[in-house]
């Protein structure tokens, strides 16, 4: 039943699950996570349509969506790509550099936010238009 080893380098053949149940289970998990993410997106949409959008609430929802996406990524990499059943050193080779991403994201988003604050404080042209400031908005668009 099992295939011959694909190369001389392989020491032991990983155990093979005969049924497709874990695959379909993961499919349902991914689908449900996606539906939850979309519902949260809808909630954010409705908050923005409302009178006084609560910025902290929106941020909390966006945070939830990020966590759900990370969960989806975990299931895809661990089950679909079989990384979960590989040798631990291979798992670490992949996971450890990706931890750099945490700092990568933090640093750059912090930077972007800082640019916005600095521009708002010091740049005379960079004001959010309210009434008839179309030429300035256009200039801002051209600047970016």
């Amino acid at each position: 039943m099992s295939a011959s080893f694909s190369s001389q380098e392989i020491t032991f053949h990983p155990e093979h699950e005969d049924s497709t149940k874990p695959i379909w289970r993961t499919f349902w998990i991914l689908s449900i996570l996606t539906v939850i993410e979309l519902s949260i997106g809808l909630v954010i949409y409705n908050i923005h349509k409302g009178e006084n959008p609560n910025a902290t609430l929106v941020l909390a929802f966006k945070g939830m969506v990020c966590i759900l996406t990370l969960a989806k990524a975990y299931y895809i990499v661990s089950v679909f790509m079989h990384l979960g059943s590989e040798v631990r050193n291979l798992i670490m080779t992949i996971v450890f550099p990706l931890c750099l991403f945490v700092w990568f994201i933090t640093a750059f988003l912090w930077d972007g936010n800082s640019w916005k604050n600095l521009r708002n404080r010091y740049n005379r042209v960079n004001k959010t238009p309210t009434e008839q400031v179309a030429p300035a908005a256009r200039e801002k668009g051209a600047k970016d």
Partner: protein
Amino acid sequence: MSIAAVQQQTKWWSGGRSPFNASYGKVMMWYFLMSDAFTFGAFLISYGTIRFSQNHWVDPNHVFNSFPFAGHTNLPLAFVSLMTFILIASSVTMVLAVHEGHKMNKAGVEKYMLWTILGGICFLGCQAWEWTHLLTGQHEVLVNGQLEYWNTTVAHNPFGPEVMFNGKEVATPGPIAFGSYFFEITGFHGFHVFSGIIINIIMYLKAKMSHFEQRGHYEMIEKAGLYWHFVDLVWVFVFLCFYLI
């Protein structure tokens, strides 16, 4: 002896074997996917930086609210949800193809590879529709006191902050960066989907021509599967960054 015992007692780094118990091809595919992950990560993070440096950014619920054949009905994020499900489904069929490969079931591998290829082509078709819709769209925008109708390109962004004009709310031009980032990142991802489809077609043909039967294993399907799942994974993050956040 049990696999765990084999794993404990083996001298992994003394030569003569792969220290990861995986073939060279598979390990190299993982390393390539890591490098690609950093490339996409760099693109998405730079998008995040620019986006958060702006006072106003487009609302994806307003930009992406159309559905093919639904005219002007407001269906926020409906089409992109369909695209996400298509890609997840094609990932599932790919895993099933790899599973059939482990059982040396040639017919099963062929069947599931065909479904995966079909899913990929459907996704690309949907993406093409989305692009066409943005590039040929007509959105009302107030420019220099005049009402114009703009499409969304790398030079035009009609989804800027809204102002009052003649008693109703009208958009003004928005940050140009949106178009560049959207088309560039989804384009780069679409290119990966396209190359993935080509690879999958080649895998299907090789399976059909019994190359893997003769070789004795279907590991190449597994490696192609890794690439395809990576493409799906990137889409999950593109979906997050552009449509949800």
